[in-house]
Each structure stands twice: as structure tokens, then as C-alpha cells.
């Protein structure tokens, strides 16, 4: 085997004019999460535990759109979703519609480990969380001032904001988006990528795992489910590879993006980098998205067709990189 490898992301689609300070903040968080994952891998923690650990860290930090700091629904509330998948037996767990669970990725893990099911949502998921005794908080805990402000702007623009910091056509601010709205699914919404978070890991035994977590789209309809909890779309892991995606949820679902990476490796014999390039180039059409992936051989790759993706990756031989563009 090629040793361990890890990648993390904090969303695809970044404002070219994002203030330096925000970029640095994001890179610091990504670095911190990478370090957590690397320590865990050096202590021989299995891949499935590492991805959960790292995504918990990303959920707890308010910077990205998951857990605390999640985007808000049209009603100003938070509804979170997540999924996790363990490559060796392709065991998986997913949750949607969480409003009080502090770490959605851990509840997804419990669905995988403690129920005969793969996916629990809304009231049923919250009830399960209560019974499992996981940490619960008020919905208000997840809501940040920044996001309350963004929701207001989104409503004024009467559009769905992916990321308030990503203007269209390279000009600044939401104003530009209003002037030239980009269509998604045939309806006028601004094209911004959400800061979904994710982590993929291959450990020293060659086991791959993946996990993804998000608050979803700003101003989304209550009850809207995106790609993050859908196995094969936002998250996928098998013997060969672990993948986590971010970007336009609907485009990722339509292209079953995470599964696609594995499928071209499995059925077309592409290697990890070829697979990631192929999928980003040919499977997204007009959709905007990014992904991170690791292979059982210890390789790591990321790809995106957006203007940037918050990401970090590291391999056992000492390679480490954190980037935005």
C-alpha cells in the first residue's frame, strides 16, 4: 500500500475578491483540521474514524457552512444534513433535516452503526439522536449573525444564494448577481457554491472513507435535501476510492458525481487523477462543483470547475498543501 492520505474541503466556489483576511482564516481552519486528521492517522486510527473526527471539527467551527455557521432556510432556521461511508464494505449512514444535533456527521455514523437503516431524516432522526444521547442544542446555536444578514440579502434578491462572497462575472457583491442572475434548474438563482465541508481518508491499511456535512443552500425551502446526504452524489467510498463533493447540489445529484469517480476507475480503469479530471470535465455540463478524493494506493486528488475551492490535502510521505484557488 502507498501509505495514508487525507483531504479536506470547505466548499467549492469562491469570490475572486474575497478579502485576504477571510482567505487566511479559511486556510488556518483547513490546516488545523488536516493536522487533526494527520495525528489520528499517525496513531493508526481507521479511515472511518478519521473522517468523522475531522468533519466534527469543521462542523463545530462557525466559519464554513455546516453545523454552527450553517446557511439558513427560508424561515431563518437551520436544517443540517450529512453522510458518511466506509469503503471496505460500503457501509453508509446519512441524516437530513437536523435542527438540534450539534454534530450531524456523528449522527450519520450512528445511523450506520446502530440501526438497520442507512438514512434517517427530520423528526425521526432527531428522535433517534435523543435516544442515542448525542449532544443536542437549541437551533439558535447554529445561527450566526453573518448568515442572518445573508438571508436578508437573499430574500431581497429573491434568489437562492450559494455563497454571498461569490459574485457573478467577476464583479463585486450581491448587486452584480442581481443584475445578471444565472439560471439554475431553469429558475433564476444566483450561482454560488455553498461551503459544504468534507473529508476523505485512506489509512495505512488501504481502507478508504468519506464524509460530507452541510447546512445546505441559503434561503432554501424547508425540507429541501441536497447532495450531501445522498450516497453516490455527495459522498461515496468503496474499495478503490473515497470521494466528497461540494457545489451546486442539484448538479451533483444529477451527475451522481461521487459515484462517477469510482465508476470510471472501476469500469474504465482510470487512475485517481484521470478519474477526477474526467468527471469534472465531462460530467457536470453547466453545473458548478468540486470534489476531493483519495485512492487505496495512497493518492490524493481534487478537482473543481468553480473559481476556487477551499481545500487541504496531505500524504504520508510528507506532502501537504492548503489552497483556495
Amino acid at each position, binding site marked *: 500500500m502507498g501509505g495514508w492520505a487525507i483531504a479536506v474541503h470547505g466548499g467549492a466556489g469562491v469570490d475572486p475578491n474575497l478579502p485576504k483576511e477571510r482567505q487566511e482564516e479559511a486556510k488556518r481552519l483547513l490546516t488545523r483540521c488536516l493536522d487533526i486528521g494527520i495525528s489520528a492517522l499517525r496513531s493508526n486510527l481507521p479511515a472511518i474514524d478519521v473522517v468523522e473526527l475531522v468533519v466534527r471539527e469543521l462542523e463545530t467551527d462557525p466559519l464554513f457552512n455546516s453545523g454552527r455557521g450553517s446557511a439558513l432556510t427560508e424561515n431563518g432556521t437551520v436544517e443540517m444534513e450529512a453522510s458518511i461511508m466506509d469503503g471496505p464494505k460500503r457501509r453508509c449512514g446519512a441524516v437530513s433535516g437536523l435542527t438540534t444535533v450539534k454534530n450531524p456527521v456523528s449522527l450519520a455514523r450512528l445511523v450506520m452503526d446502530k440501526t438497520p*437503516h442507512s438514512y434517517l431524516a427530520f423528526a*425521526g432522526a432527531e428522535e433517534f439522536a435523543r435516544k442515542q444521547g448525542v449532544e443536542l442544542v437549541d437551533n439558535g446555536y447554529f445561527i450566526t449573525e453573518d448568515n442572518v444578514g445573508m438571508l436578508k440579502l437573499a430574500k431581497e434578491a429573491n434568489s437562492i444564494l450559494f455563497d454571498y462572497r461569490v459574485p457573478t462575472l467577476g464583479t463585486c457583491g450581491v448587486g452584480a448577481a442581481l443584475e445578471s442572475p444565472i439560471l439554475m434548474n431553469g429558475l433564476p438563482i444566483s450561482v454560488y457554491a455553498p461551503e459544504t465541508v468534507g473529508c476523505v481518508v485512506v489509512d495505512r491499511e488501504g481502507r478508504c472513507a468519506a464524509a460530507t456535512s452541510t447546512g445546505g443552500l441559503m434561503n432554501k425551502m424547508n425540507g429541501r435535501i441536497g447532495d450531501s446526504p445522498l450516497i453516490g452524489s455527495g459522498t461515496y467510498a468503496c474499495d478503490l476510492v473515497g470521494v466528497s463533493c461540494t457545489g451546486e447540489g442539484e448538479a451533483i445529484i444529477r*451527475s451522481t458525481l461521487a459515484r*462517477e469517480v469510482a465508476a470510471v476507475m472501476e469500469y474504465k480503469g482510470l487512475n485517481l487523477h484521470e478519474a477526477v479530471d474526467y468527471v469534472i470535465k465531462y460530467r457536470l455540463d453547466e453545473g458548478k462543483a468540486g470534489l476531493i478524493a483519495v485512492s487505496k494506493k495512497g493518492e490524493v486528488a481534487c478537482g473543481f470547475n468553480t473559481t476556487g475551492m477551499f481545500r487541504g490535502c496531505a500524504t504520508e510521505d510528507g506532502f501537504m498543501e492548503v489552497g483556495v484557488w
Partner: protein
Amino acid sequence: MGWAIAIHGGAGDIPLSLPPEKRLPREAGLRRCLEVGIAALKARNHPLDVVELVVRELENHPNFNAGKGSVLTTSGTVEMEASIMDGKTMKCGAVSGVSTVVNAISLARLVMEKTPHIYLAFDGAEAFAREQGLETVEMSHFITPENIERLKQAQEADRVQIDYTQPIQKETPKDAAVADGDSQIGTVGCVAVDNEGNLATATSTGGLVNKMVGRIGDTPVIGAGTYANHLCAVSATGRGEAIIRGTVARDVAAVMEFKGISLKEAAAYVIDRVPPGTAGLITVSSTGEITMPFNTTGMFRACATEDGYSEIAIWDSPSK
């Protein structure tokens, strides 16, 4: 080339000794729904309209596990889910946790066409249904005495049961995969192609008997229970958790494309790779081929092609 259509009413451990009073209504249901689909295709309706129409019929039929006749959650409630996909545009729609909407598949279609989203669930889905003026009823409308009985048996046996056509056996089932009560059946679906190669698929279900409240299966997960692109349209049925893990519907098309094999070979390949007794699927290709493989004891199914061929079956048949 011509049009082609296939429908299913669930794959599972359907015993060969299924008594006539259980078998005949389902065969009649399949026959009627197939005829509805055939008439719609002959009238040159778009496959997307055809699959929605046929699945609405299957949902309304009380002997299949969708719409009326849905199996019950552990709380005795009904939580239905469905999804629909257009092969040409790859547009799709899905719903989960629907308890009062008469036709979940139509709600899924509206999500696809009237929202910027693909998937709505629970309260949000119900609210959207009302906004759209879809027909809603009291949840009791969907609950049948048979399903109340099935739930009772499952809870007594403390199992989650996928096979709703037979009472839970008191003795231990021989198949290890069935040990916790999961003999696989349930879900309805329809795939269709017109003579221009336009493909569509639709799947709908009440889920698993005695499932946890809030449990979502493969049916609304695009790529798992439902998928269509320019090559083929697929609707799967069986053990949801295995179908999700196996990305079954997506894989049929992926294997055709990446391995360059036929629809029949691709479908067989995918079914072979899920654990025995866990899944079945129906699929049509853009050129009008049909195949309906399953690795369970049986699958309620029917199909027809423009050249006059038609078939209704439950267990193995020569053209499987």
C-alpha cells in the same frame, strides 16, 4: 424500433405457494397498469408523463406497497417516498416523508418542475403539496387492514420486514439475510421509452414494514432506486440499504457505457453484485430493449413493446 414499457410491483421472497387470493389481485393490477401505460404510449404521450401516470395507478392500487396500501412505520404511520427522472434532460424530482398526499410521484414531479430543488421531504414536502393544490387526504386513507396486521406481526417478531406479501414465519428463515425479517419486496415502478428514444423512470414506495420513523430508503435517492440518462431508464426494488450501497440504478447505465455491454448484460451484472435475495430492477434502453432481472425469489412485473410482445410474471420466466 418502437416504444417499450416495463413496470414492477416489488421484488422479494414471494413464495411459489402464494395463494390465489394474494396473487390474482396483483396480477390484475399489473395487467391494468400496463394497459394504462401502453395506451398512453400509443397516444404518443411523453415517457415522463407515461411513467407518472402508471405509477399513480400503482399507488392507488391497495395491494402494492405504495400510496394506498403502503406498509407502516413502527409508529403505525405512513411515510411515503418517490422519485422521477427524465433521461434526456437528466432532470429529476424526489420526495420523502409524505403522509397525506394521494400521489407521491406527482409531488416528486412538481418538485422537479416547480422548484429550484430536486428533493423535498417531510413537513416541507407536505407544505409544498398544499401550495401546489395537490390532492391530500387523511393518513388513514393509505392504511389497509393487511398492513396493520403486518406491522403487528413484525413488532411481535421484533423485525423490520420488507416482504409484505406473506405473514412472518415463526420458524427461522433459511436465508441468513432474512434472519431479521428482511425478505425483500415492496415499491412500485415504471420505466418507458418512446420511439424517439426518450427515456423516463418513476419509483414509489411506503418503505419497510416497521421501519424507524424518518427512515429513507433507496426509492427517492437518485442513482440508487431510480436513474435515467440517454442510454437507459432504471427502477429498482428490494432491500433499500443494499440498493443505496450498490448505487444500483446508476450502475446499470454506467456499466453499459463504460464496459460497452448490452442492457441485458449490464443489468444482470449489477444484480449479481448485490447480495442474493436483496434486489430486482426493471430497465429499458433507448433502442427499446427491456430486461427485468432479480436475485430474489420473485418480482411482480410486466412489460410490453410496440411490436406486440407483452408479459406479466412473478417468478422466473424465459425472458427474464
